[in-house]
């Protein structure tokens, strides 16, 4: 440690305190009883009326792994940062707030909230506590309940910053419909449906930060003049009643984030049919009323065996 090389006694002392925190919160003695008392009624599996009730939100609070792994909202404890921890956020909400945890007897006593906050800030150490072995095992399995929508949303969301208010306000005057998908103003649903053809020019406003667009609806437009189209975090694209160029078709087929492609009544460039065949990233592909032949539709259904091909 370079602090020691400095031979500065005070710094060494400081470093030692950091390494072996004297005032640390003890999980097993101080935190676990709170969780047991206030949270485990819902956040672990139990039998009720002869039926197995699974942990709410897939969040198992009766094991170390479960707590570390979080639930359907993702990781909820960020060691060393209570303020970034969703668990801490939820227990700190005011009385009567819809998201407050615990929902019935909440909020916890302020001393308990502080204790949990301190424990997270100090690194959320569990000591030797492992918790329920069975729950431990369950938590170590992949979280199958997390849908691709959630996974993609979380990934994309963490890859971009919030859009500031002035920019958003300016966007509201543009000929498209922009709707925030959460209060964080990070990911948006963007729609040109019902707007005049000229509106498409405004697509270029996203050239510098296309990562904010999660859902895009270009229904009813002639897309052949489009030059720029690089939405790298797009999850869902609606191309109903559109016509597109081979160039655009190629671009779309290479969009790895894309999970839902709606080609309802779309004129897909038939010379680029093969581009569709390679789109294994898709989960849903809608082909009804499109210009693709029945044979082509069946071919897509056969090749894209992991996706739902609708026609």
């Amino acid at each position: 440690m370079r602090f020691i090389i400095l031979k500065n006694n005070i710094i060494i002392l400081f470093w030692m305190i950091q390494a072996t925190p004297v005032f640390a919160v003890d999980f097993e003695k101080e935190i676990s009883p709170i969780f047991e008392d206030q949270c485990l009624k819902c956040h672990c599996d139990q039998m009720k009326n002869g039926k197995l009730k699974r942990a709410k939100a897939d969040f198992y609070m009766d094991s170390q792994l479960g707590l570390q792994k979080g639930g359907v909202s993702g990781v909820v404890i960020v060691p060393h940062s209570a303020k970034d921890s969703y668990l801490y956020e939820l227990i700190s909400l005011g009385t009567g707030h819809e998201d407050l945890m615990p929902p019935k007897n909440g909020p916890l006593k302020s001393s308990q909230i502080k204790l949990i906050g301190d424990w997270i800030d100090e690194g959320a150490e569990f000591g030797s506590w492992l918790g329920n072995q069975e729950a431990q095992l369950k938590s170590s399995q992949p979280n199958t309940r997390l849908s691709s929508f959630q996974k993609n949303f979380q990934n994309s969301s963490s890859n971009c910053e919030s859009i500031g208010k002035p920019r958003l306000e300016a966007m509201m005057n543009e000929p498209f419909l922009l709707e925030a998908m959460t209060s964080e103003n990070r990911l948006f649903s963007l729609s040109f449906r019902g707007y005049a053809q000229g509106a498409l020019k405004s697509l270029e406003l996203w050239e510098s930060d296309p990562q904010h667009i999660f859902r895009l609806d270009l229904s009813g437009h002639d897309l052949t003049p489009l030059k720029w189209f690089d939405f790298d975090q797009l999850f869902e694209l609606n191309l109903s009643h559109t016509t597109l160029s081979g160039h655009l078709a190629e671009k779309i087929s290479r969009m790895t984030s894309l999970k839902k492609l709606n080609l309802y009544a779309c004129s897909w460039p038939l010379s680029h049919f093969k581009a569709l065949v390679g789109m294994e990233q898709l989960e849903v592909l809608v082909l009804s009323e499109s210009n693709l032949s029945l044979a082509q539709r069946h071919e897509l259904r056969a090749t894209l065996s992991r996706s739902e091909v609708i026609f």
Partner: protein
Amino acid sequence: MTMSNMIHKDLSRRECIGGLGGLAALGISAKAEAAYVKAPSRQPATARSVIYIFLGGGLSHVDSFDVKPERPEIQGPMKSIATSVDGLQFSEPLSLCAKMADKLAVIHSMSTSQGAHEQGVYAMHTSERMRSTLRHPSLSSWVSKVAGKRSDNLPSSVLIHGPSRLPDNGYWDPIHAPLRIQNVDRGLANLGEKSNLNQTEQRYQQLQRFNRRFMDQFGSKEVDAYEDMYREALLLMKSEESEVFDISLEKTLTREVYGQHRIGKACLLARRLVEKEVRFIEVYEGGWDTHANNFDRLGEKLPQLDQALGALVHDLTMRGLLDQTLIVLTTEFGRSPKLNNRDLGRDHHPAAFSSVLIGGGVRGGVVHGQTDERGMEILHDAVSPADLNATIASALGLPLSKTFTTDQGRPFRLANDGKPLRELFI
């Protein structure tokens, strides 16, 4: 950016909105408000539009989605069939629903405190109990108030076949009341001939000239509201988009698939409106108050419901729109599992009833809550009218914790602090 001025869809409308003032107005400012939704909720909006099918009179839960096949004294002559979800059965007339059960989230544990029609309907629509001093807005009006409208010419919410007693804008401005379609066959009534529009507009301007002095002196929010309504109506009359209300433009085959009955036609119109990005469409279908002769009447009504719902889900799926359209099927209360002696009828039963959610990010093949073996009481996970409304609002990404203040300074929250059933969503 320079481009944008050229392609604004309608400036005149936006200018006239200025009069309403503030973020509460529609159009552009309402869009801005939607973008600044300030809820700590991290749940992303999964749905973009809602089709809310309300079965007026009270759907019998034990004869539809919460059957009790082991209890013949409850079930009467109604048979049950297996669905595509293991262990879940529906009543026999719901054969299409049974096939697509893997797309449905069925709530078996709805419960309300209101056992009379008007109060029950009110509670379901507003999340509140009826009071003599105040009318609360319906969920559709809340959606209009909070999320604004998407199209300049079309309203944010439409109510199809709704009786006049249904709650509408309540304490919000009349502009947030849903547009009412009384008869789908006639579409949007009194649209008038496009050729006469100039005359109508001239008359309207004349009217404005007459009114100006009065407005300057006595103008109030209520009077302005009439003005807004005239303007909205004119915009709609002028717009090409008014065609959306005409279901005769659909192929005959499509209309046959939905069914040539009220609910079939209403559901077809609802799909047309979803395509035009109307946020909230309510389809009201009365006639479920089966105090007498329950089974014969359900024998007529349930197949129609099944056909319309099946067609709607299929059609939206084919158009790739089911993922972003939340279909809600609900009613004001359930019906008593015990049969009465009026030709095997069922009376009101507010303690337990069922609702169904489809699409819009709903996890399919899920059953929420449970009633006892007779369908009388909720065993666990009871869902109140407010909880259901909170669930719908949450799917649309609307803020449930934000407080809105009425003109009288009274604070209210969307869905009256109901708890959304987020576990039903992807």
